[in-house]
Each structure stands twice: as structure tokens, then as C-alpha cells.
């Protein structure tokens, strides 16, 4: 008599199934976003330190390796945006009478806000 059998869970479980893999990717987008805000923080620090420090840092950011990193980070950020907006309706259930507001509408409002905000930020930064 050996009793109930417990199947082991390998630590690579997230590679065995597409949905789990996408979940893991989604979670790891946060690493890229965090890395980006750290780079941004350094940019601000250098800006504060003076013209030379700032410009040398910009040159550092302009190196191909850093640009590749940012392209990847951008892809990660977009993936995060999409997954985040699509999940928002799960957390926020807005009821109007008997029906809750359909998920696509909540997600749609998110996307609209996203477009407006992105345009606003780009305009402020780039207008000069």
C-alpha cells in the first residue's frame, strides 16, 4: 500500500503550456519596465549633475546595445499594456442596473485614455 500518488511539479512548469508561458512573459514585463525607470532615474540624476554628465549619458543611451534594450522594453511594455487593459474588467465590475458594463467597453475606455495620454506626453516632450 503506497497511498495516494502526488505528481511532482517541475520548476519548468511554465514551459509546458502556452498559456502558462504567456503568463510568465506577462509577469516578466515588469522587470523591463522597472529597468527602464531606473535608467530614467539615472538620466534625471545626470541631468541634475550638469551638462557634460547629461550629454555623456545620452551618448551612452544612444549606443546600439541600449537602443536594442529599449526596443525590447517597449515590446514588453506594450504587452503589459494590452494584458493589463484586458484584465481590468475582471477587477472593476461596473454595474448599471441588472447588467454589468461589458468588458470590451471597459477595456475600450482604457485604450482611449492610453492614446490620449500618450499623445499628450509626446506633445509636451517634443513640442519645443
Amino acid at each position, binding site marked *: 500500500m503506497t497511498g495516494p500518488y502526488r505528481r511532482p511539479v517541475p520548476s519548468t512548469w511554465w514551459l509546458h503550456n502556452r498559456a502558462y508561458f504567456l503568463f510568465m512573459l506577462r509577469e516578466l514585463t515588469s522587470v523591463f519596465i522597472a529597468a527602464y525607470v531606473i535608467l530614467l532615474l539615472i538620466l534625471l540624476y545626470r541631468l541634475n549633475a550638469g551638462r557634460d554628465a547629461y550629454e555623456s549619458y545620452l551618448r551612452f543611451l544612444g549606443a546600439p546595445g541600449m537602443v536594442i534594450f529599449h526596443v525590447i522594453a517597449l515590446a514588453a511594455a506594450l504587452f503589459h499594456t494590452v494584458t493589463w487593459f484586458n484584465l481590468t474588467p475582471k477587477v472593476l465590475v461596473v454595474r448599471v442596473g441588472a447588467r454589468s458594463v461589458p468588458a470590451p467597453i471597459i477595456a475600450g475606455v482604457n485604450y482611449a485614455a492610453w492614446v490620449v495620454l500618450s499623445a499628450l506626453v509626446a506633445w509636451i516632450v517634443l513640442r*519645443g
Partner: protein
Amino acid sequence: MAGTREPFWWSLFAAGGAVAALLAPVQIALTGIVVARGWAGQSFTYDRALALVSHPLSRLYLFVLISLPLFHWAHRFRFTLIDLGFKWGRALVAGVCYGAAVAGTILAALVLIRF
């Protein structure tokens, strides 16, 4: 009572996730690619950047943009480590992750206050 602090971390995670979802793509595209490749022309010279960042609203904006996504990262990373089998010391994992986010937040405040 570790359990009772979860709502706090979760709310920072959620706020950070929302900030990142709304702003990270445009920010990365701007400072990481457009500015870095020099495509922004005159708009991001030292003087213009300094003027832009010195505005109190900009600094508030940057503080939020840096701090909250760090908490977002901390929360997700903490659970990712657990999911990957870091079973030992859940408290330690949490301490390191949130600690890093807190440190980043303090640094951001220190940098931004000096403009």
C-alpha cells in the same frame, strides 16, 4: 500579521501596473529610442530638458512614473520567484523586493527634490 499588509502592497502594485500600462510605452519610446537616437532634434537639449523637469508638476509626474512601477515590479517579481520554486523564505523574498522598490522611491525623491 503579514496577511493584513497585503492590501497595501497590492494597491501599490495595481497603481503601478496602471501607470506602467498607460505611460511606459510612450516614455520608453521617447527617452529610450527617440531622444537616445537623436531624433528629437532640439527638443531635448540640456537646457530644454532642465527647464521641463524643473517644473514642479513634471517632478511630481516623474516621481509617480518611477516609484509606482517599481512597486509593481516588486510585487510581481516576488510572486514570480515563488512560482519558480523559491520556496525558502517567502518573507525574505518579499523583504528584498519591496525593499528595493522603497529604496528606488527614496532615491527618486532625493534626485527630484534637488532640481
